[in-house]
């Protein structure tokens, strides 16, 4: 994150400093003309820089997605999907838990209504993430950007987008999408085609890739935020209890995630509300909402 912030700062400073340096003998008019020209370049190159920062930060996500979607493809194959259908499902949904639950439903020839319901339940957390991002969106952002930013809300892309300071830059988001979503979709197809060739041992090893990615997202903030440091073990304990206690144990894991999220996040928000200066949805504390553009 620090690297991309300094990247932006670098582009800005060089853009401004290049005006006097590129016109050493120039007087005011030249400088003004130079400034006008480079304003357009700065905005274009900023978009590009943001996009490539997104691609760069998206590479580890994409590699993780390739491994995870491979195991997802194995589930898709069991549900009777061919490689093209698996690709289509992944590029349209971009949701690990949601797609997995959907494939399980397809395998049992469930009704169209129940597949809509399970998708709603397993993806409900995106409703919350989208709400968080909406608070970090410049009010003047175009609807088309809102649509494509929404499309790319996944646990991981959300995490790297929200960890950046200031208003959300759609081009950063697109960079991360451009590298990770194709690999997610291709991985699903590969899982369908090659899943049978992979040993049970390898499938078992690949299956934890998704959780490793989650850990990389929520463990680092424990170092900075004392409430989060207590919160994570509490979540683990509550989630474990819900998986073994009679009654709630029989509730589907997607529904359990929703109940636990609402109950725990609601309680901690009531007991330990964030300080007024902390911005909503800011993953790391102590940063201020400074718009990046302008």
């Amino acid at each position, binding site marked *: 994150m620090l690297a991309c912030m300094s990247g932006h700062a670098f582009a800005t400073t060089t853009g401004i400093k290049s005006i006097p340096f590129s016109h050493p003998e120039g007087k005011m008019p030249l400088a003004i003309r130079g400034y006008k020209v480079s304003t357009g370049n700065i905005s274009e190159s900023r978009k590009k820089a943001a996009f490539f920062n997104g691609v760069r930060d998206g590479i580890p996500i994409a590699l993780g997605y390739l491994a995870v979607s491979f195991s997802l493809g194995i589930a898709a194959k069991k549900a009777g999907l061919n490689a093209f*259908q698996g690709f289509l499902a992944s590029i349209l949904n971009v949701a690990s838990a949601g797609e997995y639950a959907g494939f399980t439903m397809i395998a049992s020839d469930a009704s169209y209504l129940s597949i809509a319901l399970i*998708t709603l339940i397993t993806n409900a*957390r995106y409703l919350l993430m989208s709400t968080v991002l909406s608070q970090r969106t410049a009010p003047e952002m175009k609807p088309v950007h809102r649509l494509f930013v929404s499309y790319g809300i996944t646990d991981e892309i959300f995490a790297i987008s929200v960890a950046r300071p200031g208003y959300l830059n759609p081009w950063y988001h697109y960079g991360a999408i451009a590298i990770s979503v194709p690999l997610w979709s291709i991985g699903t197809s590969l899982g369908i085609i090659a899943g049978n060739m992979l040993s049970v041992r390898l499938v078992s090893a690949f299956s*934890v890739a998704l959780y490793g990615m989650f850990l990389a997202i929520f463990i680092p903030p424990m170092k900075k935020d004392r409430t989060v440091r207590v919160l994570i073990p509490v979540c683990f304990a509550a989630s474990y209890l819900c998986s073994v206690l009679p009654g709630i144990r029989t509730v589907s894991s997607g529904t*359990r995630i929703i109940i636990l999220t609402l109950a725990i996040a609601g309680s901690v928000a009531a007991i330990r509300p964030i300080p007024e200066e902390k911005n909503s949805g800011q993953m790391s504390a102590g940063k201020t909402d400074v718009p990046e553009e302008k």
Partner: protein
Amino acid sequence: MAHNVYIYIFIMFLVSITIRLLPMTIFRKPIRNRFVRSFLYYVPYVTLAVMTFPAIITATQNPVAGLLALIAGVAIAWAGGNLFVVAAICCAVVYIAELFLL
């Protein structure tokens, strides 16, 4: 009765894009309520944590392998490992652990 796979996929798409798009288009003004802002701040941590545990120990063939992957993943993430490094180490730990455990 057999359902059409393409209709299944289309319904999944319709539901998931609606979920993601609605807040981005409706809640366009900043939320002032402190409880709501706190709630939204904590949601990602809680939802990812409850999805990770105990699922990580039931995903593997042997739960001990999953537990070892969890411990290794927490340690590497704490030390500052990025997404890919943490995910790869978790996979490697499970693979190696299951060579001995199974």
